[in-house]
């Protein structure tokens, strides 16, 4: 954990609205939650910095509206940022702020360095293409042009996520929510991304299915040493998966540390409330 981070985010900011003299200054801004009453600006993510180290799972916890999903969308280039920087430890490109890159270069990073699992599988899958085709799409995007090779990879991944191979040519729209989520995970993993984002992946799934998906994520981390950022409002998920955890409130990080430490000995009043309400 004392090595170079694989992903470093510095002062990430995402706001909706122009900002004004009442809210621009970080130290002395007069916000109500993340909202400026003077100009109506909403600060979805405010001055957020974090590091992700190789092989670790970083948990992000917070109530809905705390900015955790927006942060994820910013990192995955699904939405434009207001300001800030992110550096990925790629050979020769460690000093490139990836937010400054062209959309073509951003797509390259998405195809080669990133995997993403959305809360709603509709966003991550082409629902009317075959499941194996969905996985191949990511491989094709990363430059693979060999069908047999992609078929083999896809079959291995689908087996890993417990999708019976006789259903691999079926479209995800015919699948249950849990199965769709597992196909999405297989797809996100297909190009062996060093960084994987998981956004509320178990929300809305049955408890037994949740457990299977969580097991799967844990297994992937152990076997593939992929670094992950796991966003969840569910402390149980965070407790099970995350090595380190950050707690977000109103677009800002209010507490961070080893997961055990944050959950056993919360410092911030909000975190205390969050942890004790669970007990």
């Amino acid at each position, binding site marked *: 954990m004392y090595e170079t981070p694989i992903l470093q985010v510095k002062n990430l900011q995402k706001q909706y609205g122009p900002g004004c003299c009442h809210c621009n200054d970080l130290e002395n801004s007069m916000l109500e939650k993340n909202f400026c009453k003077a100009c109506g600006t909403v600060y979805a993510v405010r001055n957020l910095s974090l590091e992700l180290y190789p092989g670790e799972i970083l948990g992000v916890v917070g109530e809905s509206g705390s900015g955790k999903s927006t942060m994820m969308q910013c990192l995955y280039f699904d939405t434009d940022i207001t300001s800030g920087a992110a550096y990925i430890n790629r050979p020769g490109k460690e000093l490139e702020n990836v937010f400054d890159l062209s*959309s*073509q270069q951003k797509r390259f990073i998405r195809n080669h360095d990133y995997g993403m699992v959305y809360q709603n599988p509709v966003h991550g899958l082409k629902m009317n293409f*075959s499941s194996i*085709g969905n996985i191949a799409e990511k491989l*094709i995007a990363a430059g693979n*042009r060999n069908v047999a090779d992609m078929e083999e990879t896809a079959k291995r991944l689908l087996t890993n996520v417990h999708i019976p191979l006789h259903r691999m040519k079926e479209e995800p729209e015919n699948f249950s929510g849990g199965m769709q989520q597992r196909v999405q995970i297989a797809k996100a993993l297909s190009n062996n991304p060093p960084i994987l984002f998981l956004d509320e992946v178990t929300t809305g799934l049955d408890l037994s299915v949740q457990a299977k998906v969580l097991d799967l994520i844990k297994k992937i981390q152990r076997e593939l040493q992929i670094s992950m950022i796991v966003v969840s409002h569910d402390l149980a998920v965070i407790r099970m998966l995350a090595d380190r955890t950050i707690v977000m409130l109103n677009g800002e990080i209010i507490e961070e540390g080893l997961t055990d430490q944050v959950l056993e000995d919360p410092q911030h009043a909000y975190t205390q409330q969050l942890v004790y309400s669970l007990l």
Partner: protein
Amino acid sequence: MKAKTHFAFFDEGSKKEIRRATLKAVAIPGYQVPFASREMPIARGWGTGGLQLTLSLIGKTDVLKVIDQGSDESVNAVSIKKLVQDTTGVQLTERTEEADIIQSRHRIPESELTKNQILVLQVPLPEPLRPIEAREYKTKRMHAEDDYSGAWLLLFEQIMKYGKTATTADHPVSVKDRYVMAPSPIPRFDNPKMDHSEALILLGAGREKKIYAVPPYTSVKSLAFDDYPFTVESFEGAHCHLCGTADVFMDELIDHDTGTTIYQCNDTAHCMDQLNKQEEVEVESIYV
């Protein structure tokens, strides 16, 4: 209030506009250049893109050939020729090698084109990514970002479903390893003719308002996976019942007298050419 039609139908301002778009298309091989397509005296979808290119390029001394589905005498080819000749008075030809401009729908002539010729192809649907994305706003960005995984995915899905790629005409190509392009609904048989063509190839989509180009000596590769190579239509064992040629694109016909399937060169000018050559040889063999 009688008006006389201008040379080559358009006013000069319109021609310049189209030529500017054409130049841009030549400068960015395979990129679809938007242009303000004019309404023509023939219907949208009947070759107005090709016709606009031809009319914007043609000069008084040019010789024009127009083919439709391989044939110089097909109804639409005749109609287009008539319009161009009525408004320009240029010379027409059916012989491929005599033409300066060849406007064609759905075929590239069998005999190789030269650097002195321009092939104008009529395009109904210029966007190769349309089957996976209906919105122009998005497909335009996909081209910009070199994001062609969708085009490949379509081929992959066919392989998964049918065990092979099942594309028909209009099999997508990659131009100069950058833009993926719809070659217009030419049969796969004609795709290889685009690769490093000596002649300039211009493609015009009138209704969709796009012009694009393959400049001479430009690489054009049909999309295909490494282990599922690109194949053309098979006419194995078939030969033209008129001229006997075997390695060309054929029309499949039913002989009404015998009820059997017979084949005939789709490119009527090529067939005629072959027949003439054979006759010359015969004549020579008799008199020499």
